[in-house]
């Protein structure tokens, strides 16, 4: 993590190891310079490092990267020629692979499954290349009436709309049920007091 000698080794501290630990460990807490670094603070849990890497983008990393599908099937020669979705010498038409960084199945499954419900989607699936890296690849093919990118944007917008409906319904029903159950609790309490 550190290339040069950590400066805290030279820091005025009764224990150089703690000095280094505290100064150069993102998961470790702070030290009190006024008190000879003696009052070391602790991270309330120190069992795994840098777990925020699961959801925070690295420096300069973008959330979504994508490229057109240019891979060709080794069986290209034998495939039927005319249909749009079959590979051409320049790759697969109307197909793109989107790489989502710092995302997981929450979004991967949601998008890939939802996309399948549109008529113009020919193929949609995602994979997590390795479970230890927070990223997934989404491959989308369309029938040509819409680009894969616009298909995803449309899909996202529809889901946001659905969630908005869910939210408003949830909030009204919650208030209704809450009032009813509170009234009931009050009535119960009153009845108990009568005895």
């Amino acid at each position: 993590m550190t290339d040069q000698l950590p400066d805290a080794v030279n820091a005025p501290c009764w224990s150089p190891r703690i000095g280094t630990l505290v100064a150069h460990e993102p998961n470790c807490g702070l030290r009190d310079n006024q008190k000879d670094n003696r009052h070391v603070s602790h991270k309330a849990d120190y069992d795994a490092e840098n777990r925020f890497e699961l959801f925070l983008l690295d420096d300069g990393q973008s959330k979504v990267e994508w490229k057109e599908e240019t891979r060709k099937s080794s069986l290209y020669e034998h495939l039927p020629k005319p249909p749009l979705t079959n590979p051409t010498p320049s790759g697969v038409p109307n197909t793109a692979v989107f790489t989502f960084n710092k995302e997981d199945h929450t979004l991967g499954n949601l998008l890939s499954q939802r996309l399948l419900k549109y008529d113009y989607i020919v193929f949609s699936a995602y994979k997590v290349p390795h479970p230890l890296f927070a990223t997934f690849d989404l491959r989308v093919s369309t029938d040509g009436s819409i680009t894969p990118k616009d298909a995803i944007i449309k899909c996202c917008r529809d889901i946001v709309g659905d969630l908005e409906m869910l939210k408003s319904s949830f909030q009204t029903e919650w208030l209704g049920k809450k009032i009813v159950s509170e009234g009931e609790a009050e009535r119960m309490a009153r009845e108990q007091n009568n005895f």
Partner: protein
Amino acid sequence: MDYDPEGGAINVRFLQADNQRANFIVQNFNLETANSLRRVMLAEIPTLAIDVVEVLDNTSVLADEFVCHRLGLIPLISKGVEDLLYSRECDCDGYCDNCAVVLTLNAKCTGSEIMKVYARDLVIESGQRSSDELGRPVITDSEGTGSCIVKLRRGQAIHMRCIAKKGIAKEHAKWAPSAAIGFEYDPANKLHHLDYWYEENADEEWPKDQERINLDGGPGNPDEPFNYDAVPTRFFYDVETVGGLDPDQIVTIGIETLQKKLARIMGELQGSGGGDGMDLGGAQSPTMNGAGYGGADGGYTTPGYGGASQWGGAGDAAQGGTTPYGATPYGQSW
């Protein structure tokens, strides 16, 4: 909805609603969105938890790290965390009032009896916070003590400064807002998504949740041929809170968090050239009054929960990112 064979709008029906749990059914919904919502409610809702502990004095029998770990797991009231910044996004060095709540635990046993130090003994140190609720330990037991942190013998003392920060459960489970989320669909297994193990007869050996089966349209008819195209449309949720947030807040913030995730993807894809004809306005319902699905910078405003909170947006502070504390650097610079 085009994907729903039966038609009908997405709606919610409640079975139970109180301070502890929200037990409800979502109807005319789809599995992937329902599951994503469950996952977001489990792992991606910001709450408050003790993250760094400065040990000033500890003569108890438990090691510093041991006590610190226990402190981290204590649930704190998180109503109003949306006004708090993530510590890593704050300009300050270490922590400050904009990104942390400081609690002190100071106890010394002077009597001859064993003294128990409880979660209620955590005292909020930082002043000038408008909602003094935020960061208080959650206390729900009848004695009003909260969980026991350490026991002290005569002469033993413990003095710690606990810095509580905002975080999500993906980083550490101590930030999880929910104790448990029940999630179920198709209790009668009419869709055959489950393949029951059995000795002789699965139907007799496995218990049935008759109540739920009735809520889900009764048991399947064995004479009917199996419908391969059937998809689940009704989902049973049972959200139980740890105490930091109300159960309805968990669900609402969960939905908003998922919406923000999707909005970010939309913004990002739109920013990367092409597809200019797409207008984002379509996704907004009247309740979202002008909440801007952000551009590449992810600026996005959420309505609801006391004062619009805003983050990410560069410079558009005019959209109402004011917090009760006035001078927070929301949307200004970092």
